[in-house]
């Protein structure tokens, strides 16, 4: 009888009441899930844009889509994936799990948290509304076609008539406001709301990575917002910051943009590093190797990444000194990143590896991010960058980082934390299909792009010339994109299927060590009945091994 009332009662709530709760909630867990669901929606859009581009590039001189449409597709694909897929899904995971991992009942500023989410969501709507509402160079219903870094003066009123560019500026600006409020909130939460006994030096690594990410957001987004406001002044109030026809400077935009744009790469990457730093130890059944160097490397990446932005601009004709300075700084970032790779690898050593789906994604991350990192070193070699910059080699490089690295890390996070948030395990069989298809599809898509780049194919072209040996590589890429698309469809099916049919998870299905596993799945609104007291980096290990607790070794 009691069970009946428990299961039936929620279903009887009127829809308006449920909707009201979703719209007005300030709960960090519910907002986290809203972030994640919204990002899934944008992932479908961004993925379809990518698939259309790949189909267009199946063979030379295809005309599946027009040149203008293609230019809109890559602009929207890049903008969507960066601002409206990876940022929010990571924000969602951080929102949901950082308070749980540090033993807090909610974020420091719950209403600011909700504000941040709605800013992001409406920013995304504004961007996509351009497909219906914007007047562009080609008439009504034009999405922006300026590329995701929107180089001036292509964005000036002379070359970008109508208002599709304004939708891009306002959409990303709004979501940036959301990101900044997220960052402020995270920093306040992590600094002030840790469970008793949890020092910064005993905080889970995911918390550290989110802390550094939030710091980077605080430094990177305001200059970007300022640049966008300057651009809007140019476009509507007759200012000439970037208007080269009136003596403005196009390179000023490039500097301002990449001053945001490069830290942004680490804003996307660090949370994924954080997930990996949680998943690998749990499924190796070992403590993370070198916690202290991990933290130092993270903070080091944070600082160095603020000083490498002009490596995106080796071809614009800067002085030797500046080229060399930024090349050196870029090499330097390889050191802390290398330390992370080595520490993760060393954590595997001597472990008892459990090949669960999250672990497979984490291992996939290690392999693919390694390649992305090494091609990054190649691109930091200035003369090689003169050849490879803005070619398909570059596309391959940053997808190995952003997709092979970051998205594989996020997927590990999905499979790892889904049982906690939903109370059911994700289906393993579908998960294996998802992993292997995504792994094969990814490699099939992006390995050949290294070759088409070397053969002279520049990025952002709606077609390529026949007879230069690029055909086969583009066809392989297109096949790979289709396989990747299928794998992501399986993932979405798995999310939905497991919600209804998944095996009951219990509180701690992975036998893990951080605090989120100390409460029920899903956790109650107040998270913990009693705030736990923490003595080490792995409070649940201490609990399970009272004979040999961590705090004796740290």
């Amino acid at each position, binding site marked *: 009888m009691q069970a009946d009332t428990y299961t039936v009662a929620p279903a009887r709530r009127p829809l308006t009441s449920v909707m009201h709760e979703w719209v007005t909630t300030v709960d960090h867990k519910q907002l986290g899930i809203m972030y994640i669901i919204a990002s899934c929606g944008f992932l479908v859009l961004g993925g379809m844009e990518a698939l259309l581009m790949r189909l267009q590039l199946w063979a030379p001189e295809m005309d599946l889509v027009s040149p203008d449409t293609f230019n809109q597709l890559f602009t929207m694909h890049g903008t969507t994936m960066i601002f409206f897929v990876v940022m929010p899904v990571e924000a969602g995971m951080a929102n949901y799990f950082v308070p749980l991992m540090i033993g807090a009942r909610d974020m420091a500023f719950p209403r600011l948290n909700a504000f941040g989410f709605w800013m992001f969501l409406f920013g995304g709507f504004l961007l996509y509304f351009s497909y219906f509402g914007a007047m562009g160079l080609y008439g009504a219903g034009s999405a922006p076609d300026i590329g995701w870094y929107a180089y001036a003066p292509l964005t000036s009123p002379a070359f970008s008539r109508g208002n599709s560019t304004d939708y891009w500026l306002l959409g990303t600006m709004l979501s940036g406001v959301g990101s900044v409020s997220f960052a402020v909130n995270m920093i306040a939460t992590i600094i002030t709301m840790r469970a008793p006994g949890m020092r910064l030096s005993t905080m889970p690594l995911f918390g550290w990575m989110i802390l550094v990410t939030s710091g980077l957001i605080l430094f990177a987004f305001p200059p970007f917002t300022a640049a966008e406001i300057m651009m809007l002044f140019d476009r509507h109030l007759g200012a000439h910051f970037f208007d080269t026809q009136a003596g403005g400077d196009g390179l000023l935009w490039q500097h301002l943009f990449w001053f945001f744009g490069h830290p942004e790469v680490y804003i996307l990457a660090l949370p994924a590093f954080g997930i990996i730093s949680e998943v690998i130890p749990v499924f190796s059944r070992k403590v993370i*190797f070198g916690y202290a160097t991990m933290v130092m490397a993270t903070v080091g990446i944070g600082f160095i990444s603020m000083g490498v932005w002009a490596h995106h601009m080796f071809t614009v004709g800067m002085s030797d000194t500046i080229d060399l300075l930024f090349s050196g700084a870029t090499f330097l970032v390889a050191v802390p990143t290398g330390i992370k790779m*080595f520490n993760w690898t060393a954590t595997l*050593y*001597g472990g008892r590896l459990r090949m669960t789906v999250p672990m497979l994604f984490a291992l996939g991350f290690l392999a693919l991010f390694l390649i992305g990192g090494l091609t990054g070193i190649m691109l930091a070699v200035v003369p090689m960058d003169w050849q490879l910059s803005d070619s398909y080699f570059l596309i391959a490089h940053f997808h190995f980082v952003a997709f092979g690295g970051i998205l594989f890390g996020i997927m590990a996070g999905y499979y790892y934390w889904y049982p906690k948030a939903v109370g059911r395990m994700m289906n393993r069989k579908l998960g294996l299909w998802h992993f292997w298809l995504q792994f094969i599809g990814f490699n099939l898509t992006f390995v050949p792009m290294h070759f088409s780049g070397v053969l002279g194919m520049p990025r952002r072209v709606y077609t390529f010339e026949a007879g230069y040996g690029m055909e086969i590589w583009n066809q392989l890429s297109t096949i790979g994109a289709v396989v990747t698309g299928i794998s992501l469809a399986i993932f979405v099916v798995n999310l939905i299927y497991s919600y209804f049919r998944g095996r009951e998870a219990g509180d701690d299905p992975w036998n893990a060590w951080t605090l989120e596993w100390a409460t029920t799945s899903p956790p109650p609104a107040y998270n913990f009945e009693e705030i736990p007291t923490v003595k080490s980096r792995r409070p649940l290990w201490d609990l399970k091994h009272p004979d040999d607790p961590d705090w004796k070794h740290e």
Partner: protein
Amino acid sequence: MISSRGHRSPQLLNINLTLVLAAIRSCLKLAAMIDHRIESAPCPLRINVRLLTWSMMALLIIAGTATPALAENNSIFSPASSNSEKINDIFYLVLAITGLIFVVVFGAIAAFVLRFWSRDAETAPEPPQIYGSWPIEIAWTIAPLLIIFVLFLIVIRSVNEQRPERAPSDALKVTAVGHQWWWAFDYREHGFITANELHVPLGDEEHPQSVFLELESADVVHSFWVPRLGGKTDLVPNRVNTMWFAPREAGIFTGQCAEYCGTQHSKMLLRVIVESPDEFEQWVENQQKPAVDDPAGAAGKKLFLELSCANCHTIRGTGAAGTFGPDLTHLMSRQTIGAGVQDNTRENLLIWIANPHTFKTGCHMPDMKLTPEQVETVVSYLITLK
């Protein structure tokens, strides 16, 4: 053909074959190992690991057979100038360094995964916990520092070698101006302007002839990239960038704009024609002349000047002096029209003049709504512009 270093491909092929064979052998070994380890693993896992190994092998084979092919075509691996040769050498060096890092780190990951893969982790006791090791962590901080130090030295040397200040003083100077979606090449020292095709003379081993480009833009940011001749340099409005290269081979080298610049970014192609000094002199002489005044084109010329054509195009020796579009004085000396969209033939010109957007949607040359007779007449003039 002059090449001080000989042709690279055969040598490359050999290295690649050895590499590929070694890779296949180690793959087979790995596959055998994996098979051994997962004999009693759950079924899907077994299939998947085999699948992975075989697909990795397939990838390696593809990559191995691909690399020789990459040395042909327009590849940056078949350099045709002193500059791109240097970049090519650095490429192999850096590829070797990063390749070594990859083999070591990936090898460690793969070895640890195979070695410590546990089928009974759920029930087995926890392994010994290793919290870290300062000596090891310091070692793998210092090792990468040393590697990047070496790489940085390589960068310093190579950047210094390739900078415009190092261009020989007797270089041929040309100003390249990027337009939405075509190139103007202004031979200021010779007194003429042409479009989309850059002719340069070939030196010999003792006296390599360099080309020094001043890069400007008429509208948005473009980028000059001919992979076989060297790296790319952007054309930024309000700035003059420079680059140089010294070709080592005669031939036609194709390239294209490498910075997104609007609708027809993909069709902003260019070609560099490296020819013998004699051929180059002849070409220059011809370009310096005003347009030929062939009676066969008289009617077309009249029409050209009466219609709006002259507002955008220059034909030296006539009243047409527009600068928005390409200079047409010696149109028929060029191989392509529309910055590489089509071969420069009478038939294609007919289609182009009738409506340029048939070949190049969105280009800035408007459809002038000429009657078929007018198109015919104008083209009969244009094809006299040898």
